[in-house]
């Protein structure tokens, strides 16, 4: 009887040796004459334990990690292929505290299945949502998503159902579904994980969206920095087409939905939905004025749904189990779950999908285990490069869109980057301005010119020059960016800059009192 061993094919796991481990296991098993069925699963998202190898046993899957290729021979010696004990043994995967404490709805299959196996997908509840949707009137599908309370997980948190409803009610011969897979925020990787580790869930979500609003063509606008996701998506799309889950007659329903992956080219601003559409149309990614809304006049001038990967990947479970089921997770107006990404200087970096409402402190310490450097955490940036830096005094804020807005911060796409006390927040503020200058599309003046002036200004502040004049000038410049920019790139760069200044004035060479005056 052959033994089933799992080694993740996730690109982060590969970046720290998963491919070498997989090769070593194959080779070692051959030498020992042990029949092994090696499956490249997705990552469970416990990255400090990656590469995490799992072995199927009668009691369930048993995990070992972090495994390097030189450990493999010793693992075989310890009879790990039958669940044997070894210093790297972690016990039953499902019993790992980090996983057990989570509520995985969108990530239900991730790390468990072979990402590009349609049979695996179907065997773990895949396509139940689409099957339900095919028997529902379009307006009911939209209502189900509206009832779920799902809000855009890309960052803006706009209610997904309302967006869909606008497209449904805008008559047009051609409508589009765009998946915004330009996950450019530092500290975020949940989109990448979905696309690499469960591409079918995104395909199913987009298909449901297409049927709901009457769109027959979908595009996944994928960042070029994600080659593994590109490959997984294309493989999964081909399989879905071959099995009748995509194409001109989906599961014999007579409904049409076709899907294509398009690659971006390293422009952060193309994650802004109108810039993204310009890019898809083959142009420079300049941000468009709104209105018209993309839902009314979007890609090639047609009504278009633009949703983030996680929003679309959450749709299948909503259609499978109902809007109420999803809505029952979460707090206030933040319903359902959020795949939180713990990154930067943390001991236990990884993916935590959990209902809204947990505090930052619980995430940073109970899950994250504190700074990996062993030093105190000084600041965390939540929500990507345009998100505010939060000091320790704000760590008790619950993860909830409104609670974050109340402290002038954003949840964004759910990325949390921790910094220990060696960080200089003035340098981080200067970097934010530099990033905005590099990535500005150049269309509006506050962002194009303001970011460069802000970078120069931060340079002077760091050198301690004319602080009496320069600090107020920085605030005034941020005010211009905040209120005068066309999109969130210029409009939100003041979040990291001003939060750094407000919470860590000493790093800017001024004391707290001077900062308040």
């Amino acid at each position, binding site marked *: 009887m052959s033994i089933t061993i799992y080694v993740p094919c996730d690109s982060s796991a590969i970046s720290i040796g998963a491919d070498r481990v997989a090769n070593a296991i194959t080779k070692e098993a051959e030498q020992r004459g042990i029949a092994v069925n090696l499956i490249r699963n997705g990552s469970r998202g416990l990255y400090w334990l990656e590469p995490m190898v799992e072995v199927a046993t009668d009691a369930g899957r048993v995990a070992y990690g972090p495994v390097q290729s030189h450990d493999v021979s010793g693992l075989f010696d310890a009879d790990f292929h039958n669940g044997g004990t070894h210093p790297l043994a972690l016990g039953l995967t499902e019993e790992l505290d980090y996983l057990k404490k989570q509520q995985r709805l969108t990530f239900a299959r991730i790390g468990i299945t072979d990402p590009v196996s349609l049979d695996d997908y179907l065997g773990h509840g895949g396509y139940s949502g689409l099957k339900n949707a095919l028997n529902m009137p379009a307006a009911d599908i939209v209502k189900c998503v509206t009832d779920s309370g799902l809000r855009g997980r890309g960052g803006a948190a706009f209610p997904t159902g309302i967006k869909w409803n606008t497209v449904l009610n805008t008559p047009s011969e051609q409508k589009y579904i765009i998946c915004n897979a330009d996950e450019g925020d530092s500290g975020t990787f949940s989109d990448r994980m979905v696309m690499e580790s469960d591409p079918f869930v995104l395909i199913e979500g987009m298909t449901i969206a297409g049927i709901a609003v009457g769109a027959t063509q979908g595009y996944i606008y994928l960042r070029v920095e994600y080659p593994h996701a590109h490959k997984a998506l294309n493989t999964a799309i081909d399989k879905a087409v071959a099995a009748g889950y995509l194409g001109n007659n989906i599961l014999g329903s007579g409904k049409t939905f076709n899907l294509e992956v398009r690659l971006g*080219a390293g422009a952060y601003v193309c994650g802004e939905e109108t810039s993204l559409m310009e890019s898809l149309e083959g*142009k420079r990614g300049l941000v468009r004025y709104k209105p018209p809304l993309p839902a009314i006049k979007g890609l090639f001038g047609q009504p278009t749904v633009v949703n983030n990967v996680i929003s679309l990947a959450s749709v299948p479970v909503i259609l499978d189990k109902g809007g109420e089921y999803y809505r029952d997770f979460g707090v206030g107006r933040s319903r359902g779950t959020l795949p939180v990404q713990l990154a930067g200087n943390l001991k236990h970096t990884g993916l935590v999908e959990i209902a809204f409402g947990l505090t930052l402190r619980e995430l940073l310490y109970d899950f994250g285990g504190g700074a990996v450097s062993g030093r105190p955490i000084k600041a965390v940036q939540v929500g990507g490069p345009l998100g505010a830096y939060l000091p320790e005094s704000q760590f008790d804020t619950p993860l909830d869109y409104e609670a974050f807005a109340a402290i002038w911060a954003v949840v964004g796409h759910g990325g949390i980057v921790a910094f220990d006390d060696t960080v200089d927040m003035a340098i981080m503020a200067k970097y934010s301005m530099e990033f905005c200058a590099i990535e500005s599309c150049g269309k509006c003046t506050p962002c194009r010119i303001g970011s460069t002036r802000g970078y120069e200004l931060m340079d002077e502040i760091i050198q301690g020059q004319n602080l009496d004049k320069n600090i107020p000038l920085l605030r005034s410049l941020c005010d211009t960016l905040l209120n005068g920019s066309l999109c969130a790139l210029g409009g939100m760069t003041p979040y990291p800059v001003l939060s750094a200044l407000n919470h860590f004035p000493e790093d800017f060479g001024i004391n707290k009192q001077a900062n308040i005056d």
Partner: protein
Amino acid sequence: MTEPSTPEFIVQDIITALKDKPGALLPILHGIQDALGYIPADCIPNIAAALNLSRAEVHGVISFYHYFRETPPGKHTIHLCRAESCQAMGSMALEAHVKSKLGIDFHQTSEDGQFSLEPVYCLGNCACSPAIQINHDIHGRVNCEKFDQIITELESLA
């Protein structure tokens, strides 16, 4: 007549295959860069003609996107992540080390033509920071020693 293996032929082939897609310009530019490593200036007129665009419009698109390059890259292209998560894990020191080791700054190619260095803003490997990409391979938790080791391995393969 152009030979099947010449760059002109490859470019023309890509243009012909992709020009009828809606929004064909980015797919064409990706196709050319994948095949040749960069987008030679002399293929711009052909792209422009096929898509009914001006040469300036095509050039404008190429220059807008950080990923597209108009000069040949070195044998190995290194993308070093400069984003916050990597900074929190020491990427600034790594960046200084990489630049001094290779003797080049960002957007430059080493004199021996071995290495090109480009900044990147996030490889999505933030749970294993700092991250770099060398050619198609992403490496996580890279420090100065690990970087030297990877470079030595690359050079020994040459």
